[in-house]
């Protein structure tokens, strides 16, 4: 159990660093999702299944989708770039 927690902590650390060091925003969003997955595994191991549920639904699904949408909107083709 102790080793599983330690392993999860290391995975969280690595994936967190990868989120910060990834340069391309679209890939960064995917890394956030991976990071959220490892975080929720850690929460589950630390006997916080409620938090793990929230993290897996919000952190790996909803927040990345919102970021991807924002990326799509700011990359051009959105309404803001259309002359009124």
């Amino acid at each position: 159990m102790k080793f599983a927690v330690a392993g999860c902590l290391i995975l969280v650390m690595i994936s967190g660093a990868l989120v910060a060091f990834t340069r391309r925003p679209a890939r960064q969003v995917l890394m956030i999702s991976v990071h959220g997955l490892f975080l929720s595994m850690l929460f589950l191991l630390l006997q916080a299944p409620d938090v793990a549920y929230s993290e897996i639904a919000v952190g790996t699904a909803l927040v990345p989708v919102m970021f991807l949408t924002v990326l799509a909107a700011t990359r051009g083709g959105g309404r803001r770039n259309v002359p009124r």
Partner: protein
Amino acid sequence: MKYRRALRYALSILALLVLAPAVVLVALHMPAFGGQLLAYGATVNAHVPSMRQATNVVTAIIFDVRGADTLGEEFIFAAAITGLAVLLRGGRGEDASREPIHADGRQLPARSEAVALLIRWMLPATIAFSLYVMAHGQLTPGGGFQAGAMLASALLLLFLGDGYRSWRQVVPPVVMQLLEALGAVGCVAVGLLPMLLGAGFLENVLPQGQPKSLTGGGLIPLFNVAVGMAITGGFVNALVEFLEETRVPKEGDS
């Protein structure tokens, strides 16, 4: 410019000198990892399961012992979604277009049939699981917020599998706005219900039911469902507002 960079380095080193010992000091004085139950936790664990017929003490705390906090959080969430809608619609116009519009020049990648099929299998299962989590809030891990976020992301699977158009047709924003509003009203109603019976706001005076049953916990399941509805509607509305932002209106479509 160079001077500024040197200043920045000096500041960061200064901050490191001050903060690093503080971090080490805090780390040395932390309680031991796991296995230690503070007084509040011990008290709640001892009394709540028998008083409320709830086996999931976390939910019992969130929806009963500290229900007023949850009510406040629910309205913070609702206010955030409202603010988002006001902000984005301020630039875009009031109406969410009923017809999903395709932006010119953006490639629409073909959908893999395997993904579509997999999602048609997974979507009902995920929705069923989120409803299960909502219904068993006071018994097993999870609760209204978790179930709501799960349900919103389950509905999002439809977007992934069958495209934006089907998502918007199956999940009309009007329904989701109603769901969010009804959930928020429901949270307040759950608080006011005990007052009609002569007790305090959010006081759990309803019959507590049988242990380990779906109806156990008095107010907890009702509050749970109300929060679940509000969260589902809120998340879906936020996503619709964001996604509308990526689209170009047709002629004559506001």
